[in-house]
């Protein structure tokens, strides 16, 4: 069992849903990333998602594009992010780490070098936003050779047959994009999400995470009622942006933001369990 499987197994055992915060590596500046990751774990995160900054993040909204730009001022590249993961791993060998990024920086580093160095640094999964399964054969082989989980997105527009094909190559968990739009958009219907998650569950036994458009604890709680994991990105990155000039405040706000979500998700889990008994 790898770290991602172990974590989902542990969550299941404790009747808890996984909380997966996303931050952009190197935002607001490189020294902040490791303390932020530690803060997220303290706040109750189960899996950490680190964005590799890219100059043209077309699947992301303005909040994450701005985060990429802040990181790129410091020339944060993949190797720098892997150093951050290595440093994080000196204190935490259990929390899974997923890198999320765009293909071009990975391709310029080279698939093989990327996969080898990522696993050596302690990364567990890779989500490449603009690489569909059709173009990914060699990339996936490289990840699998290095025991890295390829994480795939499934969208509201993805049809049943395609969901099946994506789930065949997916490992770790699958990530359902809960709305039409980019990260940071703001309309979210829980009942729609529930229908789609059910369709995905018909195609795979992997855990299903849901992200895009989850802005606060209340939404996290509602989504926790229908998914195995809740991903929060833009709303968290917006907090980092708002408090970037006062690091101590920033860490405190981030910890509380995640802890709030944790509490809401745990409360929802208790309710679901009680509901199940009734």
């Amino acid at each position, binding site marked *: 069992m790898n770290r991602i499987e172990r974590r989902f197994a542990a969550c299941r055992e404790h009747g808890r849903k996984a909380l997966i915060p996303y931050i952009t590596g190197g935002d607001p500046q490189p020294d902040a990333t490791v303390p932020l990751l530690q803060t997220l774990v303290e706040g109750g995160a189960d899996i950490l998602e680190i964005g590799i900054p890219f100059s*043209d993040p077309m699947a992301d909204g303005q909040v994450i594009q701005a985060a990429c730009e802040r990181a790129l001022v410091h020339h944060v590249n993949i190797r720098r992010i892997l150093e951050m993961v290595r440093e994080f791993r000196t204190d935490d060998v259990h929390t899974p780490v997923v890198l999320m990024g765009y293909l071009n920086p990975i391709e310029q580093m080279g698939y093989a070098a990327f996969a080898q160095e990522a696993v050596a640094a302690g990364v567990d999964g890779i989500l490449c936003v603009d690489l569909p399964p059709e173009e990914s054969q060699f990339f996936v082989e490289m990840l699998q050779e290095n025991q890295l989980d390829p994480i795939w997105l499934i969208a509201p527009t993805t049809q049943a047959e395609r969901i099946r094909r994506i789930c065949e190559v997916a490992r770790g968990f699958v990530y359902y994009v809960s709305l039409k739009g980019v990260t940071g958009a703001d309309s979210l219907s829980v009942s729609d999400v529930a229908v789609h998650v059910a369709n995905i569950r018909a195609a795979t036994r992997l855990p299903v995470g849901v992200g895009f458009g989850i802005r606060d604890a209340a939404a996290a709680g509602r989504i926790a009622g229908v998914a195995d994991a809740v991903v929060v990105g833009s709303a968290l990155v917006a907090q980092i942006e708002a408090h970037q000039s006062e690091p101590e405040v920033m860490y405190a706000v981030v910890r509380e933001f995640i802890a709030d979500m944790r509490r809401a998700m745990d409360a929802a889990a208790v309710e679901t369990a009680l509901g199940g008994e009734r």
Partner: protein
Amino acid sequence: MSSKVSINYGEFPDAGGHFGRYGGRFVPELLMAPLEELAEAYARYREDPRFLAELEADLVHYVGRPSPLYYAQRWSEQLGGARIYLKREDLNHTGAHKINNTMGQALLAARMGKTRLVAETGAGQHGVATATVAARLGLECVIYMGAADVQRQSVNVYRMRLLGAKVIAVEAGTRTLKDALNEAFRDWAANVDDTFYIIGTVAGPHPYPAMVRDFQTVIGHEARRQILEREGRLPDALVACVGGGSNAMGLFHPFLADAGVRLYGVEAGGEGLAGGRHAAPLATGRPGVLHGNRTYLMEDADGQILPTHSISAGLDYPGVGPEHAWLKDVGRAEYVDATDQEALAAFHALTRAEGIMPALESAHALACADRLAREMTPDQIIVANLSGRGDKDINTVAALEGMEL
């Protein structure tokens, strides 16, 4: 070249949109289904006689095709070499080749039941062409334009607004064309149900590079017929500027199998290739993935896209259509550059010699034609694509010469 003559250019791209190693479809999962829907609709309508007849009628009566192939005799004689013919895309309605493509895509959008058009624009020509067909078809229209381009192409911004389009200035990134593309993709992702994204050049995810090429090949088909009528033979060389590469591909494609016709694509050399302030990915870049396709890109060692520079907003783009990347690698087309200064000189030269004021984009092709012609003889023929007219650029030219209008 001799080992490559067996390539059947008509077979490209493959079903996945690949031109050799280039092209493809690299987009977030959300856009995979809409792209497939588009590819299917396009495959159906490109063979549909009623669709083709409607497009043809619009090209004749609305766009004003065929565009003339004009022999620039006085300019040619001044240069003292090859005879230069100009394909007058500047005479199209809205003043550039862009409308050949927007007309086709907008008719397709209407047939697909889409009610809202979005587009990116650099110089504003594609934005104006999109806003124009949107007005004609009664469709809602939103144009994304880099904030830097909004400033330097203010006349076109006003034209789009007059046509009823909403123009959104993009402040992210380098505030130019590439950022406008990012924003247009985001809009499409958020509004896939009712929205059609009209990409303005032969780039983007499959099927855009092939579809835009097909709509633009009207340029090359006409030019081929016209030069055969006028001269009884094919030209020795074709020359076109390359931003994303749509006017060049539209001219080149019907001549790809004619091995005797040399093809020259002209990138923006900006302040010169050495200093990095240019927009010449084919000359200086490496293959990578941006905006849905694999192609040559201007990027740094970490794979971050580099800022570009050109005097002409329409060439100010760090990528290039994947079919050009492939034609470069197989050696069928040659890619050269013209600097800001050379383009400016050609702008003035044509204006004074022929009374035709070219767009600064097209002036890059003319600068190359000038160089080529001088090394050729009067029995040789060059066809240069005059992709657009220069009215939109007179503020830029005046400012460079220290004048404020």
